[in-house]
């Protein structure tokens, strides 16, 4: 005899069409306009930051930089749903989220300029720094969520990874333990369709990436990641549930990487320009602006003032960043251990002596 022992479904949620029109009646508890305005400002600032950072890299003033162009609604959408004492364990493209959490533009620039002081967030002290390795942060997030659960605190963790990261063992292992232990954690999979040069369909044969949660017994949802309203709403519901002891949740946010993987990449080698152009139709920034114009009476003056305000904030941050003095070479010895072992004190002294003589090989 054969009988069905389990059955699964994956839903997709979106509230706005590509032009920003409301698709159907919005839920009563949809984010109010003030929250969306705040989110919109963060999206504008993130996009301006993105272009400026690439410009700094191209002129030799910043290290390799990963653009988040086109993904602003994901990273800012879940951030709007977070409480200040929730914890963010980000991947490397989450500039928008970090800005929402109180990390400064200057700190972000320092980090991508190779200065580790940029990870010493002055405000968001309990959020994690950007994780460049793939999917390792998912397990770290599970650890943070375990600590929260052990302390019985009404907090939740948000961790973010990409479509490529879902191929990793770390991702599967994090989901598994989060399910078994019912950890207060929201996994956001930013499906931007490309893992460097490898397209989504070469990464997994699964119909959705959301369904990877199902195998771990975790509820999931696919969300239009270019719809700020939808990302915020789905994240808020998941986080409320997690804080109340309802366990983990996974959101697959469908978006598109409009830029190169990083400034070290040239996507024209493997991706058609036509494909990229067609995705501008779904632009998350233009879409939420249309919504604000229609639903919130957002005016041209307000828009111009916002753009100007963001530009000023950005240029001030760039000036601050460029004025930071590099650490002395001996600084590399200051953070490896709480106290440098005696055996390596000589090496530290060598570096100090060399600096004193003004010698470098470069």
């Amino acid at each position, binding site marked *: 005899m054969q009988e069905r022992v389990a059955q699964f479904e994956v839903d997709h949620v979106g509230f706005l069409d590509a032009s920003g029109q409301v698709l159907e009646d919005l839920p009563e508890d949809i984010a109010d306009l003030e929250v969306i305005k705040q989110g919109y400002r963060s999206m504008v600032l993130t996009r301006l930051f993105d272009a400026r950072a690439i410009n700094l890299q191209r002129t030799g003033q910043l290290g390799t930089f990963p653009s988040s162009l086109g993904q602003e609604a994901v990273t800012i959408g879940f951030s709007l749903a977070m409480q200040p004492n929730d914890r963010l364990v980000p991947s490397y493209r989450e500039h928008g989220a970090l800005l929402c959490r109180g990390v400064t533009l200057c700190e972000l620039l320092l980090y991508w300029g190779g200065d580790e002081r940029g990870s010493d967030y002055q405000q968001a002290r309990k959020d994690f720094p950007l994780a460049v390795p793939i*999917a390792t942060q998912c397990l770290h997030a599970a650890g943070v969520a375990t600590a929260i659960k052990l302390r019985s605190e009404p907090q939740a963790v948000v961790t973010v990874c990409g479509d490529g990261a879902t191929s990793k063992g770390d991702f599967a292992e994090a989901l598994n333990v989060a399910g078994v232990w019912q950890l207060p954690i929201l996994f956001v999979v930013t499906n931007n369709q490309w893992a460097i*040069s490898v397209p989504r369909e070469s990464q997994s044969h699964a119909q959705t990436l959301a369904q990877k949660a199902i195998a771990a017994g975790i509820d999931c949802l696919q969300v239009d990641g270019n719809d700020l309203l939808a990302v915020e709403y789905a994240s808020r519901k998941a986080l409320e549930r997690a804080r109340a002891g309802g366990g983990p949740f996974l959101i697959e946010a469908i978006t598109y990487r409009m830029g190169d993987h990083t400034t*070290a990449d040239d996507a024209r080698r493997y991706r058609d320009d036509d494909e990229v152009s067609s995705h501008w139709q779904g632009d998350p920034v233009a879409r939420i602006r249309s919504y604000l114009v229609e639903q919130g009476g957002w005016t041209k003056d307000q828009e111009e003032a916002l753009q100007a305000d963001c530009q000023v904030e950005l240029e001030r941050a760039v000036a601050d960043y460029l004025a930071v003095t590099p650490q002395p070479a001996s600084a590399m010895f200051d953070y490896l251990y709480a106290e440098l072992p005696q055996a390596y004190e000589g*090496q530290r002294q060598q*570096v100090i002596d060399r600096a004193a003589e003004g010698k470098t*090989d470069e």
Partner: protein
Amino acid sequence: MSNSQPDNQPEVLRFGQALNRALGDAMRADDKVFLMGEDIALAGGPFGVTRKLLDEFGENRVRDYPIAEASMVNLAVGAALGGYKPVVEIMFMDFCTLAMDALVNQAAKAHFMFGEQGPVPLVLRTPHGGGLNAGPQHSQCLEAWFAHIPGLIVVCPSNAADAYGLLRAAINDPNPVVFVENKRLYSAKSDFPADPQPIEIGKARTARAGNDLTIVTYGNTVHLAEQVAKERAEQEIDIEIIDLRSLQPWDESAVLTSLSKTHRLIVLHEATEAFGIGAEIAARMADIGFDELDAPIIRLGAPFMPVPYSVALEAEFGPNADQLNAAIDRLLL
């Protein structure tokens, strides 16, 4: 095939191009050879080593792998046991940490445990080294880990000709080979033979003959040694440079022969000095070469420190010419 090179003029090739040519030639010579890696197919590899190979050999033999190093190397072990010759690219040597079980507990053990039934002819290519502002998780030189594992072969060429010859030999080898490529060498040009052949693994090369002092090194620091040796030649200090090329097995007799001539030895590498390749060579020479030594053996490598991300800090991260000159002075002055 003829080209525009005049006769007797050696062709000059970039290190990365030589690797590309070795992969292409090996795939043409043996249809069991296939490639796996991240971004190696359409994108041609993060450092361009697999460029255009997809066009010639197709997606069955040039395969982008879903991002999962442990999975990829374990799959390669299976493919090798199944009679194929996988050449796997791990994007940065730092990511080999993810594949350690596959390499150490599987690839290195299969032949030992299963005998003739279990050769693992896989090659794992991976770039090591700093100097590119790539940060502590993308700059490490971890070759000593692999040289410590019985069952693994480890090679690390310093120039285009050796890169070609050693990669062909590695692919022909019935054992698992970790093939280490220094990132800063990829674009470096050097002479390339008209009829390149595989180079025997385990044989060092005398990069420069000299009488006063021996520097044993490999990979990119061969060029640091050559630069310093050239400068010191003006002071009539005559330095011999041994380019190991293979780290496991390493050419003990070539090093001993050189030491027996110069009686002074520096072991130089970009990897962390503490517990490194240099420690093994120094200890071995202190034992079998004791009677030849006129001075202590000096090791020179990176400080016991992750590679800093900061450009300002990385510039001060050794080893550098100053340190090498100081070591030479200590032995000769």
